[in-house]
C-alpha cells in the first residue's frame, strides 16, 4: 500500500471546494490543485497500489508505469496552464467541470483494472458535457446533447466489451488485447469513438467549437489523448490502426481548408494530429509507440496554445469566424506571437516541439517500409507526409493568417488579459524548450530512446516540405484559387444524421404514416361494427324469433310494435323476466342444435 494519494482524487475532491473560495484565495487555491497533484505524481512508486475488493472483484485503483506517468505529467501541466488561462472568467461551473474532467482523465490513465477504467471513462463524458453546456448558448446546448448521446453509446459499447472480456477471461486486469472475438472488437470500437476515428468523429468538430473559451482548451487535452493512451495500453501493434490513423491524418485537411470557424479548423487539426499517434500505435515498434506518446504530450501543449490564442481573440472581439477577423496583430501582438509559436509547433518546424515527436512516427513508418512484406508502409509514409504539409496549410498558416493578418476586419481591441498571456507564454515556452532540447521528454517515454531528430536529412526534408507547402498556400491565394471563407455550416460525416437521417425520417413519415392511417381506419371500422353488432345482437335475434310467434298468434300493427319495443328494451337493459330469458336461452340452444344436426346430416 502506498502513502500517496490517487491523482484523480486530488482533482475531483479539490474541485468540490472551489466554490467556497473567493477572490485571490480562489485563484491561488485553483493553481495549487495541479501543483499538489504534480508533486504527488513525482513520488508515485511504480506498480499496483490501492487494491480494493468490491463486490467480489479485485480492483486496482492505482497502477503506475512509464506509459501512464507520461500522460499524468502532461495532464497536470496543461491543467495548471488552463487554470491560469481561465482565472478571469469567474465561472464556478467551468472551474469545477474542468477539474472533474481532468480528474476523470487521470483516473482513466492510472486505473489498474477494467472496472475502474470504465467508471472514470464515463466520468470524462460528464465533465466534458458540463464544459460544453457552460457556454449557455442554444447551439452549445444542442451540441452538448449530441455529444452526450454519442459518448453514452460509446460507453455502452465499451462496457459490453468489458463484460464479455471478463466473462471469457475471468479477469479485469488491464492487459494487451488482440483483435479476436466480439469482446475485443467492442472494446476497440468503444475506445475508437473517443479517439474520433473517421466517421465516428463528428462529435468532436461539432461540440468543441461550441464550448466555453476555457472549456475548449480543457477538451482539446483530455478525451482524445486518453483514448490514445487506451489504444497504446490495449492494442499496440494492431495493424488496422495504421490505416485508421492514416485516414484520420488525411481527411480533416480538406474540411479544415474550407472551414470558416477557426476553432472548428483547430478541431479538425486535432483529429489530424491524433491520426499520427494512432498510426504510431498501429506500427507497434518501440520507436513508433514512443513517437505516438511524445506527440500526444506535445499535442496537448501546442493544440492547447492554439485554442488559447483563438480563445483570446474570441474573448476580445466576440468573433471566431475567419470572415469576421483579420488584422489583429496590431492590437494583440503577444497573442499573435504565441499563436505563431503554436502554429510552428503543430507544423513540426525544426526547433519547435512537433518536430521532435512527429518525426519519430514518420521515421518509424519509413523504417517499416524496409521490412520484408511491408511495402505498403511507403503509402502510409507518403500519406503522413501529405498530412504534414496539410496541417501546416490549415493550422500553421490559415489560423494566424486569417485571425491576425489577412484582410483588416477593423477590430481595435485590447491585448488579451495578463493571466491569458501568462498561460499562453508558459505553453509557448514549453513548445520551444522541448523543440530545442527534447532530452527531458525522451527520458520519460515508455521505452528507451535511441533517436536523434536533428540530423541533416530530417531537418532538410521537413524544412523543404514546409516551405513548399507555404509556397503552395501563397500561390493558391494570389492566383485566386484558394477557396473563399464562407459563413456556412460544413457537414462531413454528420451529414449522415443531419441530412440523410432527416431525409430517411421524412420518407418514412410520408410513406408509413398514411399506411398507418389506412390500417387504423380499417381496424376502427371493424371494431365499431362488431361493437354495434354485439350490443344489439341478443335483442335483435330474440326479436327475430319472437316476432314470428307473435305474427302466428295474430299480433299486428300497434300491438305488435308495442311488444317488439318492450322486448327490445327488456333485453338491452337486462330487465327481462327470468321465464322469458330462460325461454330465449332454450330457443337459442335448440336453434344451435338444429343447425348442427342439419350440418352433420
Amino acid at each position, binding site marked *: 500500500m502506498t502513502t500517496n494519494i490517487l491523482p484523480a482524487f486530488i482533482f475531483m475532491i479539490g474541485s468540490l471546494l472551489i466554490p467556497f473560495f473567493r477572490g485571490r484565495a480562489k485563484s491561488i487555491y485553483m493553481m495549487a490543485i495541479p501543483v499538489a497533484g504534480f508533486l504527488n505524481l513525482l513520488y508515485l512508486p511504480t506498480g499496483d497500489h490501492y487494491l480494493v475488493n468490491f463486490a467480489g472483484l479485485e480492483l486496482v485503483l492505482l497502477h503506475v508505469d512509464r506509459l501512464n506517468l507520461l500522460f499524468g505529467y502532461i495532464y497536470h501541466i496543461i491543467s495548471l496552464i488552463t487554470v491560469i488561462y481561465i482565472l478571469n472568467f469567474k465561472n464556478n461551473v467551468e472551474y469545477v467541470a474542468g477539474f472533474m474532467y481532468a480528474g476523470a482523465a487521470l483516473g482513466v490513465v492510472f486505473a489498474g483494472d477494467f472496472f475502474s477504467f470504465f467508471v472514470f471513462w464515463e466520468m470524462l463524458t460528464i465533465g466534458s458535457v458540463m464544459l460544453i453546456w457552460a457556454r449557455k448558448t442554444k447551439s452549445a446546448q444542442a451540441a452538448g446533447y449530441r455529444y452526450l448521446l454519442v459518448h453514452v453509446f460509446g460507453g455502452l459499447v465499451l462496457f459490453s466489451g468489458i463484460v464479455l472480456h471478463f466473462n471469457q477471461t475471468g479477469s479485469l486486469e488491464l492487459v494487451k488485447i488482440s483483435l479476436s472475438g466480439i469482446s475485443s472488437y467492442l472494446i476497440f470500437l468503444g475506445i475508437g469513438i473517443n479517439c474520433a476515428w473517421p466517421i465516428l468523429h463528428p462529435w468532436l468538430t461539432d461540440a468543441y467549437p461550441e464550448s466555453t473559451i476555457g472549456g475548449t482548451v480543457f477538451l482539446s487535452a483530455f478525451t482524445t489523448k486518453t483514448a490514445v493512451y487506451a489504444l497504446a495500453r490495449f492494442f499496440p501493434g494492431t495493424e488496422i490502426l495504421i490505416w485508421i490513423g492514416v485516414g484520420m491524418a488525411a481527411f480533416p485537411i480538406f474540411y479544415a481548408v474550407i472551414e470558416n470557424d477557426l476553432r472548428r479548423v483547430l478541431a479538425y487539426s486535432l483529429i489530424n494530429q491524433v491520426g499520427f499517434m494512432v498510426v504510431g500505435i498501429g506500427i507497434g515498434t518501440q520507436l513508433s509507440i514512443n513517437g505516438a506518446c511524445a506527440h500526444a504530450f506535445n499535442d496537448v501543449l501546442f493544440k492547447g496554445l492554439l485554442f488559447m490564442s483563438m480563445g483570446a481573440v474570441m474573448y*476580445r472581439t466576440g468573433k471566431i469566424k475567419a470572415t469576421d477577423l483579420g488584422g489583429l496583430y496590431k492590437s494583440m501582438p503577444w497573442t499573435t506571437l504565441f499563436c505563431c509559436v503554436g502554429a510552428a509547433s503543430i507544423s513540426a518546424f525544426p526547433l519547435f516541439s512537433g518536430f521532435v515527436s512527429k518525426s519519430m512516427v514518420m521515421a518509424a513508418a519509413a523504417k517499416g517500409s524496409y521490412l520484408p512484406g511491408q511495402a505498403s508502409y511507403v503509402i502510409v509514409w507518403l500519406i503522413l507526409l501529405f498530412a504534414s504539409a496539410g496541417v501546416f496549410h490549415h493550422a500553421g498558416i490559415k489560423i494566424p493568417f486569417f485571425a491576425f493578418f*489577412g484582410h483588416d476586419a477593423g477590430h481595435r481591441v485590447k491585448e488579451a488579459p495578463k493571466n491569458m498571456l501568462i498561460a499562453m507564454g508558459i505553453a509557448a515556452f514549453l513548445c520551444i524548450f522541448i523543440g530545442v532540447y527534447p532530452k527531458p521528454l525522451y527520458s520519460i517515454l515508455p521505452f528507451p530512446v535511441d533517436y536523434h531528430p536533428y540530423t541533416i536529412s530530417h531537418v532538410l526534408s521537413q524544412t523543404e516540405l514546409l516551405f513548399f507547402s507555404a509556397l503552395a498556400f501563397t*500561390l493558391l491565394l494570389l492566383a485566386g484559387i484558394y477557396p473563399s*471563407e*464562407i459563413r456556412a455550416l460544413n457537414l462531413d460525416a454528420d451529414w449522415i444524421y443531419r441530412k440523410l437521417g432527416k431525409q430517411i425520417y421524412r420518407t418514412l413519415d410520408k410513406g408509413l404514416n398514411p399506411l398507418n392511417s389506412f390500417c387504423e381506419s380499417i381496424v376502427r371500422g371493424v371494431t365499431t361494427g362488431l361493437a354495434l353488432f354485439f350490443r344489439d345482437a341478443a335483442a335483435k335475434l330474440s326479436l327475430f324469433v319472437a316476432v314470428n310467434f307473435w305474427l302466428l298468434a295474430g299480433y299486428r300493427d300497434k300491438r305488435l310494435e308495442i311488444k317488439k319495443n318492450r322486448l327490445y328494451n327488456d333485453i338491452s337493459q337486462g330487465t327481462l323476466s327470468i321465464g322469458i330469458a330462460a325461454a330465449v336461452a332454450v330457443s337459442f340452444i335448440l336453434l344451435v342444435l338444429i343447425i348442427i344436426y342439419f350440418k352433420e346430416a
Partner: protein
Amino acid sequence: MESKEYKKELMELKHDAVPGYKPVFLVLFTLGFSYMAYILSQPCF
C-alpha cells in the same frame, strides 16, 4: 473592447486573384507534379 465602427458581418471572404500569378501557379504546379511523378516512378517506390 469591440470597436463600434465594425458591425457589418461579411458573408463571404473572397480571395481575388492578383494579375499574373495564375500562370506562375500553373507552371510551378506542373513542374512539381511532374517531379513527384518522377520520384514515385523510381524503383525504390
